[in-house]
């Protein structure tokens, strides 16, 4: 019965799309673009992936996968191990628990709630780093990072939506 095998393989590879989008964003975060001060304000790209897929297809991006993406981001970016893993997991948990309210809302509502969630993530990142160093760190890099992240969300959400309509819908 070869037909079901290829069919299942096809489905499996398509279902990897959310995970692969997060991995691509992970690499985009660390690649040197040689733009002045890019590293200072690089937006939290994997956060957008975790938020979107956690909201609309959390079955394709389960919690352990989110954990490993966060861990990989920590290890590649030089952040303390566990920091981004924890932040992404908490964002994922928040989004999944609020699916009931957010799932059928318009894009503007989803974007607005992303702003709130990303603010929480940014504050959490700053607080965790200050706590680990036991000093109050200057939050301004985090503020720029936050605004860039929420500004980029619509573009990325459009890409995810196209992915959902084309790669994931075909059965």
């Amino acid at each position: 019965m070869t037909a079901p095998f290829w069919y299942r393989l096809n489905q499996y590879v398509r279902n990897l799309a959310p995970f692969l989008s997060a991995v691509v964003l992970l690499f985009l975060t660390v690649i040197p673009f040689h733009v002045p001060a890019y590293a200072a304000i690089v937006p939290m790209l994997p956060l957008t992936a975790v938020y979107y897929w956690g909201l609309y297809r959390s079955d394709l991006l389960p919690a352990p996968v989110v954990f490993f993406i966060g861990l990989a981001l920590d290890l590649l970016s030089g952040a303390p191990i566990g920091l981004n893993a924890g932040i992404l997991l908490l964002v994922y948990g928040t989004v999944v628990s609020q699916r009931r309210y957010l799932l059928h809302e318009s894009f503007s509502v989803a974007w607005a709630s992303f702003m709130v969630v990303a603010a929480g993530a940014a504050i959490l990142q700053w607080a965790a780093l200050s706590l680990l160093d036991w000093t109050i760190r200057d939050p301004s890099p985090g503020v720029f990072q936050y605004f860039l992240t929420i500004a980029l969300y619509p573009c990325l959400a459009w890409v995810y939506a196209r992915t959902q309509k084309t790669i994931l819908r075909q059965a």
Partner: protein
Amino acid sequence: MARLRAGSFLRLTTPVRLFAHRFPFLLLVAATLVLMVIGRLETSFAERLRANVTDFAAPIVDLISRPVVASRALLGEISDLATLREENQSLRATVASLQQSKLTAERLASENESLRALLNLVPDAPVHFVAARTIADSGNAFVRSVLIDAGRHEGVKRGDPVINGEGVVGRIAQLGNRASRVLLITDWNSRIPVLVESSREKAILAGDNTRHPRLRYLPSTAAVAQGDRIVTSGHGGVFPPGLPIGTVGSVGEDGIRIQPFVTWNRLEFVRIVNYGLKGALPDLLGDSQTKEILRK
């Protein structure tokens, strides 16, 4: 009757079932907290893990970054074409003045050597360089580090200073087999012993994640003016003395800010400085890798 009892039983177990459903998630969150604490306390474990992952990911990131670098270079070439003639003229003038400086430098170097011999000064340890390319920036607003494609296999050691043509870039903070992480001088955790070149006053260059690190622990009687050159002092034996770092950018209420010589967004090729081993040791060690390093 039986149906009613089943319903109430389900209602009782719902919280338990919800908890069991969420348990893996809570376990993962607890795991991240544990990792953060372990990473802070037991740094060797964190370092090994980070080094292994970096070694694994380095070729991939390198491959992905090449098209980006190439397209940036292409754009740079196109914009350079516009200013080609003026650039040529100014470059010719620079070459002429540099040739002059080279002659002066050679004369001073030989004078220096003869004076040192006269005073029986201990010669500086021989210094070797390993060249490398930056393959990744830190992807974090709060960490200033870059990944380079040289590691243990190339003879790099932890703590080695990293420089480029313009000045001091940073130090090797984490070491892998094929790649390592450089902590830039602008990072929060970077502390470098420096000298104000003109007055030879000692101070510490402390990064604070901005593009202008601060000069700290300078004696209050020291007179520092804008434009003074800052170089490494060689204290602590980490950085060779005399390496250029930057100039004093501003002296104000929030301290003395340094304008580094290095342009951070054009950081591509760097050199890692490692001191050579003293004469007798290579024969004792006798392994081919050491001989390879020393032959360079």
